[in-house]
């Protein structure tokens, strides 16, 4: 919180593609770059709330998005947890899906090609694993896919036992995953961090030191609801991950602290539901912003945010979003 930060964190590096990033940033007020890759706007539907885009592409042209992070992918296919997997909370929801996905083979052979029909941009590939090997294998496979622009490595899934979460709750294993994955990837690697920790800053710094090109936060907060008539947890998995506006202030403070402590770009997420939230998250230090639960309760949430951004920027005298990244942090 005390860390001084004068430079906006757009993750620019001295590489040709950054020129493109620069240009695109100058090209439009909403343009930003993420790990050197240009985005027409910072709005990115979060993994697990947007499937592979198909359901939303039926509703609107999802090419208006900066990009999106597709459903968490594991080495093997997974059914996930038993149902109920969803519970409602005040200003939010719990989910305990448990990384249901068809496995990396099918994702590469079926989902990503299908995606090409309605999404022309690079996509963010979200990866989870249960061992270092899992992460390395799945990331290497997806890194080789032309359509993939970024890898988002989830070391923080709260809903799989002995799964991703254990890698994300302390600095050393998170760093191990990072460096192992970096060895096999050419694309930018973004580590998705858990908020269920004492010191997220030290974990973020460890990932940066291990070569991460960026970090994204926050994943869901561990939560629970009980069915008081049945006298047992509402979720089959007992606990689940809390998301929605309820977690926004927690996400904001963690983004603020992490962005002040690392030089790599921070992707902010957690309860973002409107254009004002995107701007608040960027002022906290986010170079780009993921939108999660909002997509589920309002399928047009991201469309509305993208369309409203310019108007809201005007209202607050913001010419370029890239100028406000971290402005709230004057040390």
């Amino acid at each position: 919180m005390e860390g001084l930060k004068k430079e906006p964190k757009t993750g620019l590096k001295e590489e040709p593609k950054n020129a493109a990033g620069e240009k695109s940033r100058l090209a439009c007020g909403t343009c930003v770059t993420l790990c050197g890759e240009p985005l027409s706007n910072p709005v990115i539907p979060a993994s697990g709330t947007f499937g592979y885009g198909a359901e939303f592409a039926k509703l609107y042209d999802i090419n208006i998005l900066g990009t999106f992070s597709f459903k968490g992918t594991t080495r093997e296919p997974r059914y996930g947890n038993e149902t109920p997997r969803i519970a409602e909370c005040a200003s939010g929801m719990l989910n305990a899906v448990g990384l249901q996905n068809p496995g990396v083979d099918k994702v590469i052979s079926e989902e990503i090609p299908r995606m090409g029909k309605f999404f022309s941009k690079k996509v963010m590939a979200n990866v989870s694993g249960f061992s270092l090997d899992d992460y390395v294998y799945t990331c290497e496979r997806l890194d080789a896919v032309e359509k993939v622009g970024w890898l988002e490595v989830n070391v923080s899934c709260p809903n799989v036992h002995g799964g991703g979460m254990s890698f994300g709750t302390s600095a050393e294993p998170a760093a191990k995953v990072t460096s192992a994955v970096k060895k096999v990837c050419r694309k930018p690697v973004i580590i998705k961090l858990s908020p269920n920790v004492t010191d997220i800053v030290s974990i973020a710094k460890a990932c940066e030191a291990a070569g991460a090109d960026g970090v994204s936060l926050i994943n869901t907060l561990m939560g629970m609801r009980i069915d008081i008539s049945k006298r047992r947890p509402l979720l089959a998995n007992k606990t689940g991950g809390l998301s929605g506006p309820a977690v926004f202030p927690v996400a904001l403070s963690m983004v603020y602290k992490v962005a002040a402590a690392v030089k790599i770009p921070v992707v902010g997420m957690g309860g973002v539901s409107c254009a004002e939230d995107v701007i608040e998250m960027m002022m906290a230090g986010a170079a780009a912003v993921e939108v999660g639960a909002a997509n589920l309760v309002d399928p047009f949430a991201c469309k509305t945010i993208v369309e409203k951004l310019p108007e809201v920027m005007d209202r607050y005298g913001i010419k370029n979003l890239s100028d406000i990244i971290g402005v709230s942090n004057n040390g």
Partner: protein
Amino acid sequence: MKQVFLKIKENQLIAKNTMRMVLTGDISPAPQPGQFVNIKTDGFYLRRPISVCDADGETLTIIYKIVGGGTEKMSKLARGETLDVLTGLGNGYDTSVSGDRALLIGGGVGVPPLYLLAKRLISEGKDVFAVLGFNTASEVFYEDEFKALGAKSVTVTTVDGSRGVKGFVTDALPCGCTYFYTCGPEPMLRAVYKALETDGQFSFEERMGCGFGACMGCTCRTVTGYKRICTDGPVLKKEEIVSWKD
């Protein structure tokens, strides 16, 4: 799926803790029997998925039970208020395979989707036999409405025998039907599954995150793989169901 803003034309109690709401506005395309809508309620984060009971050109009717804060709040909404509704959700029942004598079995708020289904089947010239199960007389609704549609028989069962046949729907199943359609609590669906030889279709309930296939919150296993209750369902064919095979 479509997001529409519908006006409340009617919202009244029709049985114990059971409300009927009639909505007007753009309800095109015409809902299929077994499809549901997903309704936003102020002060509650998730939408409430409720199956369509009836629909014509201008109005859409739903029947819902007051079970918690959300439906409680819905029950207090006044005529003229506008609701944010996602329509055209779910696959709905397939009437093409029914044969000419269709058995409809509903339990509690599983009854409403069968009303639109009965309407459709009868319009297709098929005979409809309805068995409607409730806990007690005060919860019974739509017996007359099914008769008015021209169902060949409408049998009501109540667990306490306070109305119609005493017992469960499976205690009052007529013979000689070519196919069945059912909707209700899972124990009832399981009982129907075991009681009937003929093929049929089941409409399932599950807690949903989105209701349109994005969140994988309502997945179930079927013989043809994992399915999302909200989009691949809520209606599954008997032969798709694995979990009750024993």
